[in-house]
């Protein structure tokens, strides 16, 4: 799960706990004020207490609606990311096929796009750094670029539409 989604979910959880406490407080005050009114009738003091209790109850409703919106934002976040992931995966597969990368090169290229450096890729694949460097050179040549940044930019350039992003 993404950190942003996680933080939204954490917010929803904390707010839910607060909401639970608010409900308990609202019940407490509602009973208290109802008992007082039953005993002493509705005076000035109790009218104000009653209004405060109603305000607390209204706060519970508004809080619940807020929790719902947080939950829905977290879900939307997850849906967007999984949609983008699916699209990105399809795009990467299409480009790799187009560039005729070998299986090993596709592996290395994927790590490179993820932002790993030569040493990290070599460690992950259990091969020598020199091998990875040679593979990267072939990948850049096939993709028509000269660097890792250039390789990443090939995908970013296709995916980001400035007009749609900054509007």
């Amino acid at each position, binding site marked *: *799960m993404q950190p942003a989604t996680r933080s939204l*979910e954490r917010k*929803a*959880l904390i707010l*839910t*706990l607060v*909401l*639970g406490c608010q*409900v*308990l407080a*609202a*019940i*407490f005050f509602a*009973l*208290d004020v*109802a*008992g*007082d009114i*039953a*005993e002493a009738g509705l005076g000035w003091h109790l009218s104000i207490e009653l209004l405060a209790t109603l305000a607390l109850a209204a706060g*519970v*409703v508004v809080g*619940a*609606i807020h*929790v*719902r919106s947080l*939950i*829905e934002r977290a*879900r939307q976040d*997850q849906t967007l990311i999984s949609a983008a992931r699916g699209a990105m995966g399809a795009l990467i597969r299409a480009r790799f096929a187009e560039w005729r990368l070998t299986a090993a090169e596709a592996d290395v290229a994927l790590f490179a796009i993820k932002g790993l450096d030569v040493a990290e890729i070599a460690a992950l694949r259990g091969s020598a750094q020199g091998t990875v460097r040679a593979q990267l050179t072939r990948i850049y040549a096939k993709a028509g670029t000269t660097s890792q940044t250039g390789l990443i930019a090939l995908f970013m350039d296709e995916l980001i539409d400035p007009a749609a992003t900054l509007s």
Partner: protein
Amino acid sequence: MNIALTKPPRNWDPVVKLTHWSIVAAVLANGALTEGGSWPHIWVGYALAGMLALRLLWGLVGPSEARFSAFPPSLSRALIHIREIRAGKVRDQPSHNPLGALMVYAIWGTLGIIIASGIAMAGLPPRAVTHEHYAVEQVAAHDDDEREGEESPLGETHEAAVNLLYVLIVLHLGGVIFETRRSGRGLVLAMLPGRR
């Protein structure tokens, strides 16, 4: 198996979990720990009423699968569901399954009866809050009255509804176990705190 793997895991939202488990805790506390008629029993009951109220509010404003509209109490849908169980068909349920929905409403209704009869017996306890000693004395006196005389109709209602609740809880647990075995979906996991 593949389908189960590709499906996103369902998980209840935090409000559903909070209300579910606090009601469980309140029922356990009042069933096993507190003495009937004592002020802890009464206040645990009020807290339970608050949590039930929150769940009902959530049924109106919560996310789609927590709303009443996602699990209407419908006998015909329950019958269709039973037929599907017989046929061995497993359908993805975004909310409670139709039998589970009936159980939910049965439990809520029973809790409502328990709360209403409990409040009718205990009355509004403003003094239980502000003057605990007074309340304890009063409750103790109240207790003696009940022991001497016959059980009031309200008390009987309260008691009968509680027994019904225990039966429903056993059925609910049975239903969860059955459905978990049948569909292999993490019904229990979906209600546990934390993410999957």
